[in-house]
């Protein structure tokens, strides 16, 4: 690679070239101004030679030819260090001007990253960078420590118009006019001088000029004098094809054509002049100077001796001049001379010589601690290395050294550092070390913001160009740069940088970065008045939930400001305030299914379906079975899409969430809907085309359809971080196809809208609950076929309680309304939990609540129940004559009984059919759903044990625990259900419960006598004479409630609930004589807190206990009847006692029973000590062969334990002829006579018998068997053995 061909090489060949100082008189300028140019400007284009082709010799006499050459011309006044402030100002102007050019591009979108990488460097890099860099480098020119800016020659120019031109030439060299460099000795004042006489042809012929020229030649020497004739074109209309001055005039629009007075001859004269001046004067002069200096330097500094001497001498110089200003090195000092030598050699492209000298001097400067000069030399060394294309490392090392040294100097080295840095960067760029170049740019940045802004921007481009491209760095540095531009009010530049950064950060998930970029760019656009773009950017940052509250407020405030500045409403598709949670989207619509409340609508569809099964003839929507033939109830179109009814609202529940901590007001929230009338449009192709692509279309949708649909609008405010579920409704008024498109809302004048489709298309997951047909695409869920109005039943239960204590019975009223004029028929109702809710009787209004419950004298049992037309599965059919129409509601009584303590969900479905057969919908259902929290109240349990002494009498223990949290109860009544059982108190009424009520947590036990009434009815006259007449179904438990009428447990509500309870508990509804159902009626104490609700209304609680078993498991029960005490004179004979056993068969089958009173003989044999009795036994056996035998004592164990005292043990034997086997009919009793013989006084336990029973199944037994099989827990045996009850008989010796 040719170093000279690189950008840096070119730059160096232009910048590090000999300087010629121009001294001219004002009249010279006057002549030139006619061309719109200054004298220097006029000459400049001709000072640049691409191939001057001057033969030269190096110091070592090597010939070479100089090709590229350039002279830099400066007026004497410009040969000085530029004022920094002025330079800065100029730079600022350049930047500002460049910024203004950007105007048009700003609004366009930033390019994509991929495009960015593809496009070439020159496209991306703003063109003014190069110019600006040049300007920056020039700010460091004409410094004292570098000699390449020191004038090599001097061009003295005098016009032919001037008087006494010769004197004017001499005046030029008046010292007061000359630059300080020459005067203060920093450079050699003896420089090449060239004398030029300018003649303006407008002023007449050149005769006078040639006269002056000859005069000049005689004075200054022939070679040094020239005549230049300009302005030969009289009419000033010269046009130049390739304007040579164009590139030299940067600023100012050329009002005047440049060089208009110069004709072709003039231009060639200019060319010749400069060529001659360069090749004949400047270059030979420099060559000569290089030669002389080289010799001097060689003499004093080259060679081993000189070096040692120099080192020694330098070391001795202990007090180096701290002043880096350079006054210690005058032009005559050897150091300066070496530097001049180096620079001259450099300018003459003899880089090796230059490098050698630079190297030589750099150590000197370093030792002298002349840092600025040292840095300058290092810089030049690096450049020389670069141009020689030698050791890159060296070049870089020198550059870095120079740069760092300049930086160390502080502000005085700043310009130089910048220049050095720029060169360094160029060097790195040439070698494709963009990353390093970027870091150098970064280091150039000074405190001055504008400067560093430009540098950072350039750095960012370096990152972009580096391989591989470092996009993140690119973005970051652009942002840094933009930030600085903003601080210096270069907003356009700032926007430009941020815009470019956006292409990197567009899709970033780094939230703070995104917010920062969008927020600032939005702000700046607003400053410039591009409100549209500003709003667009601000929208991006609005939903910044991660930011602090203060930042959020700031964002919001700025957004609103910009928004107001824009002065119009926007339709913003992606407004993030508030955020809509699409997963919360729920569409509730009513086809044939209608809902009484939103609560009901939220219940799972499958639950309703299962309830509806019995209710609905054939449900077209419910494909319970694939074999189901689709009925022709609805046309296909309707079946496949969601159906809604015109005039009925579709509810859409959407969750709005405020992502900010700042409250935001939202207004005019409504749905965007589309109602198309024509049927053809409904085809699916339409749905696929996105109609929201452009805003106009969107507007149409909203505005045009406003007549045919009614949209609800909401205003609300969302607090910080708040979520709100908003229920929006749309009511189509006409038939057609309705499509829910999205939601729109207003956020302080900014209309945001949100389309469901866009999201749904992405998330095809099942979302809402109310998806009627899962196999359809989600899009179709938002499409509805609107059919013409059909009647709709509305209903609710009046004042449904939220809480109730378990057992509480309350009357309720179901209110049904039909707003339309069409009538409906075939009302049916189904209740999910008949245990909790029972349907009352229309004829018995609830006003007479008490009467309904009280026991009346004319107790028509079951009469009310007959009125309820109970269909199968608990479906209730309303009477045919029930018509609901217009305003008159239908009221229907219901009974609520909180059965068990739990949180209980009640579902009610009311089915009805349309009277109008032509309507599309044949039937509809109304779904009601209620929630009831049931609190625990009394806990009742029963324990029944048979009375040992009485047949079919039982002792009932009722344990009542009050488990309520705060309520006391008064237990008022216990009833048995059915006719089979009667119950009576065991205690006097006052003594049952002392406190009359059960307070919280209190437990209490009651005891009752339970009697089987059937037994008494069958043979009451003969066998159970002691059955008291007060045995009744009901027992009053509380003395206070005696005044209150008894509650009829067999009447409508209670009986219904009881049936449900039985269904709940028991498995079969069959009557079982061995079970008894109890109903406990209790009342809350009036003094308690809840009495304020309805104190006049008696509150009633009922607790049901079903299938309480009478304790025995066998169907056979018996009792022994006989004397308990007997006096007998044993001295005369043994005692014979007659007993009677009454056996009852409570089963429905015939029982064969055998009683065996004897024990096995073997047991007797095993006890030989008892042998004394054996003969007697045998004797008795002989006497009564059917008698079983004898046993002594209670049991063999006790007998053996009594063995030592065996003799006094009193004993008895069963005697008498007892029929041991007999049949007993179902539900019948019989008496068996029995007899024992006692031989000595004592107390005897007559339990030593065994009853074997066997149920025959021939008649009516089979169903019992079935029942048994179906209820395995009910272990009713078909046969069994029972041992006898203890029956104690005391026989005393009569005196």
């Amino acid at each position, binding site marked *: 690679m040719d170093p000279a061909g690189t950008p840096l090489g070119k730059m160096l060949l232009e910048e590090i070239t000999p300087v010629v100082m121009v001294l001219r008189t004002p009249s010279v300028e006057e002549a030139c101004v006619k061309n719109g140019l200054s004298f220097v400007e006029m000459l400049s284009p001709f000072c640049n030679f691409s191939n001057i082709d001057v033969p030269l010799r190096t110091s070592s006499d090597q010939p070479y030819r100089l090709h590229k050459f350039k002279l830099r011309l400066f007026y004497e006044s410009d040969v000085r260090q530029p004022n920094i402030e002025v330079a800065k100002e100029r730079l600022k102007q350049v930047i500002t001007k460049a910024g203004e050019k950007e105007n048009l591009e700003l609004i366009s979108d930033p390019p994509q990253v991929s495009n960015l990488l593809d496009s070439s460097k020159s496209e991306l890099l703003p063109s003014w960078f190069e110019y600006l860099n040049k300007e920056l480098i020039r700010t460091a020119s004409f410094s004292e420590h570098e000699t390449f800016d020191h004038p090599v020659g001097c061009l003295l120019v005098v016009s032919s118009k001037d008087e006494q031109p010769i004197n004017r030439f001499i005046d030029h060299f008046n010292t007061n006019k000359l630059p300080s460099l020459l005067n203060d000795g920093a450079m050699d004042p003896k420089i090449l001088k060239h004398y030029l006489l300018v003649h303006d042809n407008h002023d007449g012929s050149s005769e006078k000029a040639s006269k002056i020229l000859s005069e000049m030649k005689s004075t200054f020497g022939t070679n040094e004098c020239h005549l230049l004739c300009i302005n030969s074109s009289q009419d000033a209309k010269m046009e130049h094809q390739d304007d040579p001055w164009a590139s030299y005039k940067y600023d100012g629009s050329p009002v005047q054509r440049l060089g208009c007075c110069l004709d072709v001859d003039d231009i060639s004269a200019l060319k010749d002049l400069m060529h001659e001046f360069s090749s004949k004067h400047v270059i030979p002069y420099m060559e000569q100077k290089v030669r002389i200096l080289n010799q001097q330097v060689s003499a004093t500094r080259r060679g081993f001796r000189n070096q040692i001497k120099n080192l020694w001498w330098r070391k001795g110089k202990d007090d180096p001049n701290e002043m880096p200003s350079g006054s210690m090195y005058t032009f005559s000092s050897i150091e300066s001379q070496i530097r001049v030598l180096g620079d001259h050699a450099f300018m003459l492209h003899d880089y090796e010589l230059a490098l050698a000298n630079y190297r030589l001097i750099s150590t000197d400067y370093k030792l002298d601690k002349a840092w600025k000069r040292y840095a300058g030399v290092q810089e030049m060394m690096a450049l020389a290395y670069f141009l020689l294309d030698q050791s890159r490392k060296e070049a870089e090392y020198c550059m870095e050294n120079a740069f760092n040294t300049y930086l160390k100097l502080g502000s005085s080295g700043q310009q130089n550092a910048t220049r050095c840095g720029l060169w360094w960067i160029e060097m790195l760029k040439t070698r494709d070390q963009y990353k390093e170049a970027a870091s150098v740019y970064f280091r150039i940045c000074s405190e001055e913001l504008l400067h560093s802004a430009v540098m950072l921007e350039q750095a960012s481009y370096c*990152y972009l160009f580096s391989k*591989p491209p*470092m*996009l*993140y*760095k690119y*973005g*970051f*540095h652009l*942002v840094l740069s933009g930030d600085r531009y903003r601080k210096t009010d270069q907003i356009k530049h700032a926007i430009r940088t941020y815009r470019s950064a956006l292409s990197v950060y567009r899709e*970033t*998930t*780094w*939230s*703070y*970065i995104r*917010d*920062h970029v969008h927020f600032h760019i939005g702000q700046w656009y607003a400053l410039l008045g591009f409100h549209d773009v500003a709003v667009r950017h601000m929208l991006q940052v609005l939903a910044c939930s991660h930011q602090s509250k203060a930042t959020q407020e700031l964002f919001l405030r700025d957004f609103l400001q910009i928004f107001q500045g824009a002065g119009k409403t926007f339709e913003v598709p992606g407004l993030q305030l508030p955020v809509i949670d699409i997963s919360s989207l729920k569409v509730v619509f009513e086809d044939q299914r209608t809902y009484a409340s939103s609560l009901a609508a939220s219940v799972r569809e499958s639950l309703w379906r299962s309830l509806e099964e019995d209710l609905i003839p054939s449900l077209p929507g419910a494909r319970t079975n694939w074999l189901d033939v689709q009925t022709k109830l609805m046309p296909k179109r309707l079946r496949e899409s969601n159906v809604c009814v015109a005039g009925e609202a579709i509810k859409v529940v959407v969750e709005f969430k405020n992502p900010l901590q700042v409250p935001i007001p939202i207004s005019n929230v409504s749905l965007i809907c589309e109602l198309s009338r024509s049927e053809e449009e409904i085809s699916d192709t339409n749905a696929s085309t996105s109609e929201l692509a452009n805003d106009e279309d969107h507007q149409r949708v909203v505005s045009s359809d406003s007549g045919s649909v009614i949209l609800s609008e909401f205003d609300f405010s969302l607090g910080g971080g708040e979520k709100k579920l908003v229920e929006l409704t749309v009511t189509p008024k006409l038939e057609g196809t309705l499509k829910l498109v999205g939601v729109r809302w207003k956020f302080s004048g900014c209309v945001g809208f949100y389309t469901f489709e866009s999201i749904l298309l992405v998330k095809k997951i099942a979302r809402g609950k109310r998806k009627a047909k899962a196999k359809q695409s989600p899009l179709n869920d938002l499409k509805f076929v609107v059919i013409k109005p059909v009647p709709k039943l509305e209903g609710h239960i009046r004042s449904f309680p939220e809480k109730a204590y378990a057992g509480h019975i309350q009357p309720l009223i179901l209110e049904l309304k039909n707003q339309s004029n069409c009538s409906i028929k075939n009302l049916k109702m189904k209740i999910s939990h008949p245990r909790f809710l029972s349907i009352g009787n229309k004829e018995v209004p609830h006003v007479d609540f008490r009467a309904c419950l009280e026991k009346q004298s004319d107790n028509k049992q079951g009469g009310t129940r007959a009125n309820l037309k109970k269909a199968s599965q608990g479906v209730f059919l309303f009477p045919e004559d029930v018509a609901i129409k217009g305003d008159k509601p239908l009221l229907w009584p219901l009974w609520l009984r909180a059965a068990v303590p739990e949180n209980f969900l009640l579902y009610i479905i009311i089915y009805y059919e349309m009277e109008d057969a032509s309507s599309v919908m044949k039937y509809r259902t109304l779904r009601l759903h209620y929630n009831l929290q049931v609190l625990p109240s009394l806990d009742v349990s029963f324990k029944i044990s048979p009375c040992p002494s009485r047949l079919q009498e039982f002792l009932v223990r009722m344990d009542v625990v009050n488990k309520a949290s705060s309520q006391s109860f008064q237990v008022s009544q216990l009833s048995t259900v059915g006719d089979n059982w009667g119950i009576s108190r065991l205690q006097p009424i006052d003594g049952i419960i002392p406190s009359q009520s059960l307070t919280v947590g209190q437990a209490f036990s009651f005891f009752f006598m339970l009697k089987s009434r059937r037994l008494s009815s069958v043979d009451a006259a003969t066998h159970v004479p002691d059955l008291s007449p007060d045995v009744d179904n009901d027992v009053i438990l509380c003395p206070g409630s005696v005044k209150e009428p008894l509650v009829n447990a067999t009447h409508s509500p209670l009986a219904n609930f009881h049936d449900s309870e039985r269904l709940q508990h028991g498995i079969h509804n069959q009557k079982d004589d061995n079970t008894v159902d109890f109903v406990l009626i209790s009342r809350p104490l009036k003094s308690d807190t809840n009495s304020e609700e309805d104190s006049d209304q008696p509150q009633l609680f009922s607790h049901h206990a079903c299938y309480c078993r009478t304790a025995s498991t066998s169907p056979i029960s018996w009792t022994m009847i006989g004397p308990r005490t007997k006096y007998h004179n044993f001295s005369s004979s043994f005692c014979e006692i007659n007993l009677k056993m009454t056996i009852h068969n409570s089963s429905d089958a015939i029982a064969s029973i055998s009683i065996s009173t004897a024990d096995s003989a073997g047991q007797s044999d095993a006890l030989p000590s008892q042998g004394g009795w054996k003969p007697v036994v045998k004797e008795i056996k002989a006497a009564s062969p059917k008698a079983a035998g004898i046993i002594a004592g209670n049991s063999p164990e006790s007998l053996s334990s009594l063995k030592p005292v065996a003799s006094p043990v009193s004993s008895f034997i069963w005697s008498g002829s007892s029929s041991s086997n007999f049949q007993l009919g179902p539900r019948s009793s019989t008496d068996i006579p029995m007899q024992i013989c006692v031989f000595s006084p004592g107390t005897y336990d007559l339990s030593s018998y065994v009853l074997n029973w066997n149920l025959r199944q021939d008649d009516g037994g089979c169903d019992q068997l079935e029942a048994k099989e179906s209820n395995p827990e009910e272990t009713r045996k078909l046969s069994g053995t029972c041992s006898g009850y203890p029956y104690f008989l005391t026989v005393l010796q009569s005196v």
Partner: protein
Amino acid sequence: MAITASFIIVSRNDIPIYEAEVGSATKREDAAQLHQFVLHAALDIVQDLAWTTSAMFLKNIDRFNDLVVSVYVTAGHILFIY
């Protein structure tokens, strides 16, 4: 010297999955975004470096003024930067 440190876990595709600002120093208003910017920019360096070295912990790979970036690169190419 109390300076806040920022700790970010970055998943593949340079998506930040965890962010934390640690430290007790008084927080500058723009600290969070500056940190993000610096760390985000450092990813460029990491991407280069991660493939050239077998080390998982890359110390001081990038710096911006007085902010120093160190990275722990996991095998799954998840980065922990601070």
